[in-house]
């Protein structure tokens, strides 16, 4: 009886949401969707929106502007999709204020879609090529990100109108055990990094004794270059809330906490907004949809410690203590927040839940590989043509991801390595490009799934320098609790500093190798245990680069300043040209006796400005490593 009521209430919500949306469109007026997640805003989406508004007010046209989330195509931000009746919805890339004004005049007023600015149409049609013709779109498999960038994350209507919260309704109709059974059957594994089966975690929590179980969503995303969780919250917060409510129903919890970094202010605002709206609609709070199920959700803003992404440190932080990891076992799922059974799931894990309930475990299992079903979301950054968020089916190879979907390496450079899993992950060389992306294959290769940051490097990136960067990060973010992580990583970092400065010693490689393994064995928490991974994998796959640094004092990528030098090739340098002289910030360039230019190596700070300044037809400034290779040219005596 209550279930029928719940269904009726849900239907009313959906009807009202749809009515609301069609009122907004007001019988087919043009609509402009602007991607206004953090990435869009950083690229100037707010100015673009203002430009649209200004241009529209000038021509007095009734057009709706809706801020939406992020499509994941960072290279093309600010992204705008224009729904103009009579045309398919068209996606425009890099819409600057000028383009915005031009679009209003030409497209909305006169009906010329300005093909030169078009990225593609959002649906198949005869007029404009669809975005689905491009590999950046059609090789993706969008499940969790399906609605990202298409709906307004600030209003619940968009999510409801597309059938949102139907997974929750379905869960309420079945028993908690059946929900856990379904999740177990789907084979979903935690997307936070370790890949623990979600169904099993829920089962342990369900069976654990405790009067006040808690669901925590871990949105303390801190890897350099990773922003999947932020985008998911900013673009579709209700999907996450629905997943949390389902989890709460399954394990018997009545409280939920979203642990999100304070550095994600927009995500925090949108999440707060979403909680308020869902509570007002009866989808959260007391007696959800008229049933006896209660679920209150709150937000906790983390203060920006990377280690608080580790679940035990996260709990300490929630309890008001300094975020320092505890020893596991006991695992939080047995004894977590305030010693109660606590489920901690990642944003992506929880966001997958509604889809599994809606479409069934079997459907989910058919996506991805056998041991790692489903999709994975990566933020692919670094040296790729089309960086951004990519959702792919598990089992897709790295080659497909980097070269087909993200367009390969720009400027005709060669691929060198890819760092998967952020500072805890590993660095894989070209020979691993055909590795399928799933939990087990990546672990086998020495990397890890991590939370999903992928950094692509080309031949201009120095492996030792990149490793130093990651170690610098983990050393600074170590909580300082255990000896191995606090002091051990510092010794690793110092050795890497030495190597990149050309002061590497003979025993340094051995020190890196041995100490890394001991830190891995001896550390208390996941941060320390994985911190040496970048060192270990680069030593394994790029030993020759380390040796070049230490033995030959040569940086193969010519990246490390101390190991490189610039010189001007006198054969190529044009007599009388002064282009480089003005560009040098330290006045290191002088005129030789025969009126050509040369660099004073003593003064040169190796900024590379002269390379950029030298006209391409001469291309006379050369970079060498080791620095001794640069010919020394005497400065002519002052006359």
């Amino acid at each position, binding site marked *: 009886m209550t279930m029928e009521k719940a269904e009726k209430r849900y239907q009313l919500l959906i009807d009202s949401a749809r009515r609301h949306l069609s009122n907004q469109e007001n019988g087919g007026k043009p609509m402009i969707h602007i991607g206004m997640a953090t990435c869009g805003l950083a690229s100037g989406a707010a100015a673009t929106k203002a430009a649209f508004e200004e241009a529209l007010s000038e021509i007095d046209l009734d057009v709706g502007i809706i801020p939406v989330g992020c499509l994941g195509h960072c290279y093309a931000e600010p992204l705008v999709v224009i729904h103009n009746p009579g045309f398919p919805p068209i996606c425009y890339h890099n819409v600057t204020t000028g383009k915005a004004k031009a679009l209003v005049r030409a497209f909305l007023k006169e009906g010329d879609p300005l093909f030169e600015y078009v990225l593609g149409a959002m649906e198949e049609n005869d007029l404009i090529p669809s975005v689905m013709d491009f590999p950046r779109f059609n090789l993706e498999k969008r499940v969790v990100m399906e609605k990202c960038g298409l709906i307004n994350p600030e209003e619940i209507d968009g999510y409801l109108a597309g059938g949102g919260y139907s997974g929750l309704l379905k869960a309420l109709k079945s028993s908690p055990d059946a929900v856990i059974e379904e999740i177990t059957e789907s084979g979903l594994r935690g997307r936070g990094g370790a890949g623990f089966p979600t169904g099993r975690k829920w089962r342990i929590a369900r069976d654990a004794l405790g009067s006040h179980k808690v669901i925590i969503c871990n949105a303390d995303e801190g890897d350099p270059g990773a922003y999947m969780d932020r985008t998911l919250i900013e673009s579709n917060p209700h999907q996450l809330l629905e997943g949390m409510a389902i989890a709460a129903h399954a394990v018997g919890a009545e409280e939920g906490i979203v642990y999100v970094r304070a550095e994600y202010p927009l995500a925090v605002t949108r999440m707060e907004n979403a909680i308020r709206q869902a509570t007002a609609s009866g989808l959260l709070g007391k007696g959800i949809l008229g049933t006896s199920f209660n679920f209150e959700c709150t937000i906790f803003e983390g203060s920006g410690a990377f280690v608080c992404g580790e679940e035990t440190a996260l709990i300490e932080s929630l309890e008001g203590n300094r975020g320092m990891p505890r020893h596991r076992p006991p695992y939080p799922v047995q004894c977590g927040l305030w010693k109660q059974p606590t489920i901690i799931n990642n944003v992506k894990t929880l966001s997958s839940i509604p889809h599994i309930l809606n479409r069934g475990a079997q459907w989910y299992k058919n996506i991805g590989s056998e041991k790692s079903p489903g999709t994975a979301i990566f933020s692919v950054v670094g040296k790729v043509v089309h960086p951004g968020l990519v959702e792919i089916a598990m089992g897709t190879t790295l080659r497909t991801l980097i070269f087909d979907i993200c367009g390969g390496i720009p400027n005709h450079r060669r691929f060198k390595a890819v760092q998967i899993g952020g500072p805890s992950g590993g660095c894989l060389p070209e020979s691993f490009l055909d590795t399928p992306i799933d939990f087990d294959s990546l672990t086998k290769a020495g990397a890890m799934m991590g939370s999903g940051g992928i950094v692509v490097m080309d031949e201009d990136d120095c492996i030792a320098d990149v490793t130093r960067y990651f170690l610098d990060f983990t050393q600074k973010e170590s909580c300082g609790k*255990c000896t191995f992580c606090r002091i051990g990583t510092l010794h690793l970092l110092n050795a890497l500093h030495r190597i990149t400065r050309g002061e590497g010693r003979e025993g340094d490689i051995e020190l890196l190798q041995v100490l890394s393994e001991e830190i891995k064995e001896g550390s208390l928490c996941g941060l320390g245990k994985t911190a040496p991974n970048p060192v270990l994998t680069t030593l394994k796959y790029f030993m020759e680069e380390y040796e070049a640094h230490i033995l030959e004092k040569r940086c193969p990528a010519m990246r490390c300043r101390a190991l490189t030098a610039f010189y001007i090739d006198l054969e190529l340098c044009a007599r009388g040209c002064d282009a480089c002289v003005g560009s040098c910030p330290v006045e290191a360039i002088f005129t030789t006796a025969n009126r050509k230019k040369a660099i004073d190596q003593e003064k040169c700070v190796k900024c590379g400005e002269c390379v950029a300044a030298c006209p391409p037809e001469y291309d006379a400034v050369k970079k060498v490593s080791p620095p001794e290779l640069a010919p020394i040219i005497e400065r002519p005596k002052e006359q």
Partner: protein
Amino acid sequence: MVRIFVDDKEIFVDEKKSLLQGCLDNDIYIPNLCFLEDMDDPPGSCRMCFVEIEGMSQPVISCKIEPKADMVVRTATEEVIRLQRTSLRLLLSIHEAKCKACPSNKKCVLQQLVRRLGVRIRPRRYDHLTRSVVEDSPHPFLKIVHSRCILCGRCIHECRKQNGNALLTFARRGIDTIVTTYGEEEEMWLTCDPCLACIEACPVSAILLKDALSEETLSEDETVQAAEYQKQPAEGDGDVRQVENSTAHDSKVKRHEIHRISAEGDAIEQVAESASTDEAQAQCGHRMHRRR
């Protein structure tokens, strides 16, 4: 009580207490720094009390293990000693080992571990690093010597025990992590005056009364000597030989001990390391004597 086997010895331990406690109760010493008997939930942070347990793939810290009946434990396998040595060397690599100026000299847990594990007080495997710590504690009479502190957290535990809420806390991150007092108001520290449990708890004299520290400050002459001692190269065979000669008188017994626990291959190096330690201590003792 359950029966377990530690290094082939049969002992009976309380299964409600940790394995480390059980061993210590039975006079089986396992190196430890951050553990105190009355801790409900030891922090497990010093990474010293490693043991190997049959059926587990790698060494585990014994303060976090609940003893189970018929557990077979080894406290001095090659793996265990290797990790303990690394842990100790790492601690020493940022520890200001001016032993002769330190109130903990001769009763210092680090000195004991140095001897037991056969590590140099100045480990040559790692560069010695000096942390630059900016002093910010406004505490009226407590002084924390960060260059000595090993961040074991015993002081914080004791403080919490005495005051309910600890007035001491860890602060900052990474290598800059320190123990410090917090709060600006002097009233907060009123309880400190009769208590001073933190000073008592510190195994390396890193927390002191401010006046005690000024007494301890070295005379000019000794500062120079201390600096020289620091500069003494820890590396080089010549150095070691010299050390061995000078300390022949009392290191025989200790050599014996060290042979017992050291891993086979590098026993000789270990002896040398221990010898240099002894020398350092002999020197320290000597000077203390002279000072009096």
